[in-house]
Each structure stands twice: as structure tokens, then as C-alpha cells.
């Protein structure tokens, strides 16, 4: 596959790895956070850590939009889905995220009709095909996904579709990064910047990281060579004593982002005063809601959602994992009480969650890796 396979070449990886190793100062430990869950997924799925010297640690950040949805919002969604005549649509990743009384699959087993869709537009198609149902799209995601929801709302308005609404859970990446940077228990040497969010917001919004916090950040693509190259670029900046915003993913990410997409978001959505992030607590201006102009597409207004705040399970240490304070396996319930089949925290649900990625792909040590290559 073009633009995919080229970036999985093992010999180039070895070359980059050698260069990275060459840049390591003896005795120094390096910690880089990949903000985006997509990167976490790539890292474990391709075994990328095998190329890194032991002195470099990758810290998995809060950039998995599934992982940061608080339990209360799942409960609210199920509450909406339980209303008579409601057909809810959702991305597949959401289906297993636990609310306080089960996930969407459990809820379906009890009688709701929550269907997976590939695109928000599919929800519109379903709405057209089921005029006697109220179709509610469970919208989640960062700025990457918000434009698609926005375009779907605009299309629904244009077509005058009356049985469609959005339960809006879109969030924004910058406040989360800022919360991480402000957290006292964390020491990071730099950031692997979220590639696909940046196709929309561009690279400028990260400038405060370099400027105010003195940390380098490299916006990275999602193939393993992309990430390895980004780490190399971070190491070069550290070596040079620079802290800048760089764009490894320039084939896809324009420096200025996507203005059409930003306009679509701005037309249909506005910032919420605050929003709860799982494990991170309330973060102000960190999420989007449907603008009052499009109130008739706002499921939160149409349905009287309980909006109860549900405390995370006691055992759950997702907050620490999302902030990069703990490695997944350091959580006390990791892999025993908390597994992909019985997740306690959300990081164990999405394939982009740090715990799930580590459990599914990374659950054995590098020493054993070396021994486990076939003849």
C-alpha cells in the first residue's frame, strides 16, 4: 500500500535506531510522550520499542478520545438509547467502554439498539431509512473527527432531516496537553505531536509548548518509521539544545491546518466552559457542544440526560497512566482484574488505549523478544 508500506522498512528502521542511539548521552534517561493514542497503537503493534535504547522511554499520553470519556457520559448515552424509538449510532471503539452499569453491548443485550457506524454520515443514511426512529449519533473524538460531525450536522440541516441528532462528546487536544504540562509529578523531554489532529489544527497551536515550557515537539505520522524519525528529530533538537515545533508528517499535515474543517466546527459547535476527562478531572474549555443555532440536532437538549458524575472505580489508575506517571503494567489491576475482556478503566478498551495496546501487543519483556525470532 502506497504511503503505508514504505514506512515499515526494517533496514531504514535499523539506520534510524543507530542514529538515535548515537545521540544518547551516556547515563541520561529520555522520556517522550506520544500524545496520540494512534501512536501508542502503532508503537505496540509494530514492536517499535525494540528499536529504542533502554534509556529512551515512551510515555503514553491522553490522546485516545475513547479513553478519556468519563463513565457518566456512557451512562448518559445509554439513558438516551433507552428512550422509546431511539436508535443510537456509535463508532465501534465505543461499544465496549464501561459505564457504571455495563457497556453498549451489554445495553444492547438488555434491549437498546446501538449500532456501529463507519462514518457519521452513515447515521444520516440510517435516519433516512428509519423515519419512525430517532437516530442519535454518539459523537466522540478530537479535532480530527469533529469536522466530520460538523459536516454531518450541516448536511442534516440542509436536507431537513428531522429524526437525527448528535450526542456531542468532542474534545480538544491543546487543553489536555496543557494539563499534562502543568501536572507536577511529570518530567518529559519532549512530545511526539498528534499527526491527524494537526491536519485540522495545524502546527501553530503547539508553539506554546516550545516557547513557554521549553519542550521540543515533532508532529508525527502513524507508520512506525514516522514515529522513529520523530524520535530522532526530538533527539537532534535535544542534542542541539533547541525546543521547536517541527513537522515530520509534512506529506499530510499543512502547517496552517485545514481552514474549511475549522470553519465547519466553528459554525456548528462552541467550546463548553468545562468538561470532565476520565482520570484527568475537569478541564476548562476542553470540549465542544452543539451551538444553539443547531439546537434541534443536540441530543443533550432533546433528551433529559441525567448528567450524573460517576466516580471512577477505586482500583482504576487510568489518570496516572494517561498523564504518563505510571506505565500500564504498573497499575495494580493491570492484566489481572483489568483486561480487555473485563476492562476496569477505559485505557483497556480502545485499541489505542495505552493499557490495551500494551496488554494486546506488548505484554512480554524485551529480553524475551530477542530470543523469540524465528529461524
Amino acid at each position, binding site marked *: 500500500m502506497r504511503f503505508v508500506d514504505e514506512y515499515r522498512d526494517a533496514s531504514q528502521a535499523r539506520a534510524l535506531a543507530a542514529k538515535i542511539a548515537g545521540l544518547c548521552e551516556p547515563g541520561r534517561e529520555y522520556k517522550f510522550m506520544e500524545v496520540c493514542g494512534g501512536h501508542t497503537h502503532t508503537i505496540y503493534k509494530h514492536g517499535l520499542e525494540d528499536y529504542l535504547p533502554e534509556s529512551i522511554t515512551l510515555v503514553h499520553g491522553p490522546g485516545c478520545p475513547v479513553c478519556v470519556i468519563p463513565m457518566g457520559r456512557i451512562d448518559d448515552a445509554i439513558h438516551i438509547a433507552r428512550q422509546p424509538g431511539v436508535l443510537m449510532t456509535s463508532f465501534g471503539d465505543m461499544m465496549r467502554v464501561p459505564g457504571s452499569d455495563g457497556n453498549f453491548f451489554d445495553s444492547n443485550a438488555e434491549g437498546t439498539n446501538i449500532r456501529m457506524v463507519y462514518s457519521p454520515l452513515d447515521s444520516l443514511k440510517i435516519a433516512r431509512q428509519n423515519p419512525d426512529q430517532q437516530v442519535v449519533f454518539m459523537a466522540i*473524538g478530537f479535532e480530527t473527527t469533529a469536522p466530520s460531525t460538523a459536516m454531518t450536522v450541516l448536511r442534516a440541516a440542509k436536507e431537513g432531516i428531522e429524526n437525527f441528532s448528535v450526542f456531542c462528546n468532542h474534545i480538544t487536544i491543546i487543553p489536555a496537553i496543557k494539563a499534562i504540562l502543568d501536572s507536577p509529578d511529570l518530567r518529559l523531554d519532549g512530545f511526539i505531536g498528534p499527526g491527524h489532529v494537526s491536519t485540522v489544527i495545524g502546527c501553530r497551536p503547539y508553539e506554546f509548548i516550545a516557547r513557554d515550557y521549553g519542550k521540543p515537539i515533532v508532529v508525527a505520522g502513524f507508520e512506525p518509521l514516522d514515529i522513529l524519525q520523530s524520535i530522532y528529530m526530538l533527539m537532534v533538537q535535544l542534542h542541539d539544545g533547541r525546543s521547536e515545533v517541527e513537522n515530520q508528517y509534512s506529506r499530510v499535515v499543512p502547517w496552517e491546518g485545514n481552514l474549511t474543517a475549522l470553519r465547519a466546527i466553528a459554525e456548528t459547535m462552541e467550546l463548553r466552559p468545562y468538561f470532565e476527562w476520565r482520570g484527568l478531572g475537569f478541564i476548562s474549555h476542553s470540549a465542544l457542544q452543539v451551538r444553539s443555532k443547531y439546537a434541534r440536532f443536540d441530543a443533550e437538549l432533546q433528551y433529559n440526560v441525567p448528567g450524573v458524575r460517576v466516580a471512577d472505580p477505586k482500583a482504576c489508575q487510568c489518570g496516572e497512566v494517561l498523564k504518563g506517571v505510571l506505565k500500564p503494567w504498573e497499575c495494580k489491576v493491570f492484566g489481572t482484574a483489568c483486561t480487555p475482556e473485563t476492562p476496569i478503566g477505559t485505557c483497556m478498551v480502545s485499541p489505542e488505549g495505552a493499557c490495551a495496546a500494551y496488554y494486546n501487543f506488548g505484554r512480554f519483556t524485551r529480553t524475551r523478544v530477542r530470543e523469540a525470532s524465528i529461524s
Partner: protein
Amino acid sequence: MCLGIPGEVIEILSDRPDLARVDVSGVKRAINIGLLDEGEVKPGDWVLIHVGFALSKIDEDEARAAMEFLEGIGKAYEDEIAALRESQIL
């Protein structure tokens, strides 16, 4: 969640200029190109697809330049390793 896949534009649908048929490794689907500027993509262009929308057009020049860099260091590394091996044999 932020899964994005590169696909090649095959045609812009004549009756729906906000839709394009793309090819991903032999598999075809209509996607929405309303987030790109009008006329920004044409058949043969590559786009990044996310949840049924084209999020950006792939910049082939940028891709080529980056790839040349990667290939360059890859080549240099292989040469070095080869040289190392030869020196050991001797």
C-alpha cells in the same frame, strides 16, 4: 479513533461534487471531500481518509523529500554495515 488511511482518488462523482470514489489497496468507496477546497483534488491525487471524509490531500513532493532522507540514511547504514562485515572477513 484517529485512524487515517491514504487512498487514491479515482473520480469525483459528477452528480455530487462533494463525493469522490477512492481506491484503498484495490478496495473502492465513495468518501466526502467537502473538507477540502473546491477543485483541490482530482483523479490520481492521494488523500487521507478519516471516518468517511478526506481530511487532507497528500503532498507528494513533501513525501518524496522525506523518503529521500530516510532512504539516504538507510543506504548509508547498510553500506556501513557491509563495510564492517567485509573488514571482519579480511
